């Protein structure tokens, strides 16, 4: 029994290592055809409101729009996160600045993942992923 438990935990650790390596590999394999710059911010206020700021600037005549996905998760145990809310936003603009707010119902550590999929004539869609955590 102990041997099985040991094997299971070893597998979990190894999978976590592979997962983290994959995340960073994604970071450095982004394509960037249609996006000049962007800005993202995530923090939780004292009253428990999760606030996300998103902004992107495209290239004139190239960038045609963006789909932004915001996911807020709450830490459950170690590497495990429970999804709290997911929001999909679409903008047919060359550049955009916006905010998203969500009132959290309980205290804890929260993770926000904002994924930009920015399209245009510069090439395949750019996929940029922002991730940050904050505690309430």
């Amino acid at each position: 029994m102990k041997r099985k438990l040991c094997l299971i935990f070893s597998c979990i650790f190894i999978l976590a290592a592979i997962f983290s390596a994959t995340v960073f590999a994604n970071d450095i394999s982004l394509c960037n055809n249609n996006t000049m710059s962007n800005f993202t911010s995530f923090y939780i206020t004292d009253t428990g409101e999760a606030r996300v700021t998103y902004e992107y600037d495209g290239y004139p005549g190239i960038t045609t729009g963006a789909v932004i996905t915001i996911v807020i998760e709450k830490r459950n145990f170690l590497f495990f996160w429970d999804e709290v809310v997911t929001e999909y936003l679409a903008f047919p603009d060359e550049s955009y600045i916006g905010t998203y707010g969500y009132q959290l119902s309980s205290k804890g550590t929260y993770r926000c993942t904002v994924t930009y999929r920015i399209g245009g004539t510069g090439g395949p869609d750019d996929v940029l992923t922002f991730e940050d955590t904050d505690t309430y």
Partner: protein
Amino acid sequence: MTEKEESGRKKLINALKEYELSFEEKYPPEDIEIEFSEQYNKYMENLLAGKIPAPKKRKNRFCKRIAACAAAVLLVFGGSMTVKAFREPVTEFFTNVYEKIIEIFFQDDDITKSPSEIETVYTLGYVPEGYEFESFEINNYRTMTKIIFTNSENKIVFSQSIINGKSWLDNENTDYQYRYIGNIEMATIEKNNKITLFWNSDKYTFKLIVGIEISEEDLAIIVSSITEKD
């Protein structure tokens, strides 16, 4: 097989046979006697009689488990540090330079000291001739502003945001570099006839996007003209 090869093969077989014979003559099997020590014989007698319990491997296994867990933990945390540890420090902001993007961020201490909302809004005090004010935007959380000036063909976009966030600049086929305008160090890129400049104060970050038709002199004047908005 050629005759020469066949001859060589026979010679080799003979040599091996000869060696085997000479080896057996030198060390006849019946002459080899193995003598065990008294201590060993006693131990074996006791072992066969069941007087000695089987050796415990539990302790050894436990050590292996600890070592495996430690290795896994090192793999997890070591793996998570490899890319993130590569940082190129500049005056106040930090950058992670990837193949396609430049990630700009600040240390936690700097974030803690900075305001979570924009308290003072800045604007450009000077724009080149022909440019006119088009729009001003501030989001409802007061975390970012954007001011746009346009002429008939181009735009000048000036953005201000809080320090608690991450900015990304395009790094694919861009002329990315650090440069000074006055005494301000900036990260700059140039692509598709646009120049983007990024810099910061103690409280805010600033981003300026202009067309390449703006001269270096005008660019310096624009940056140094930043002033509080009415």
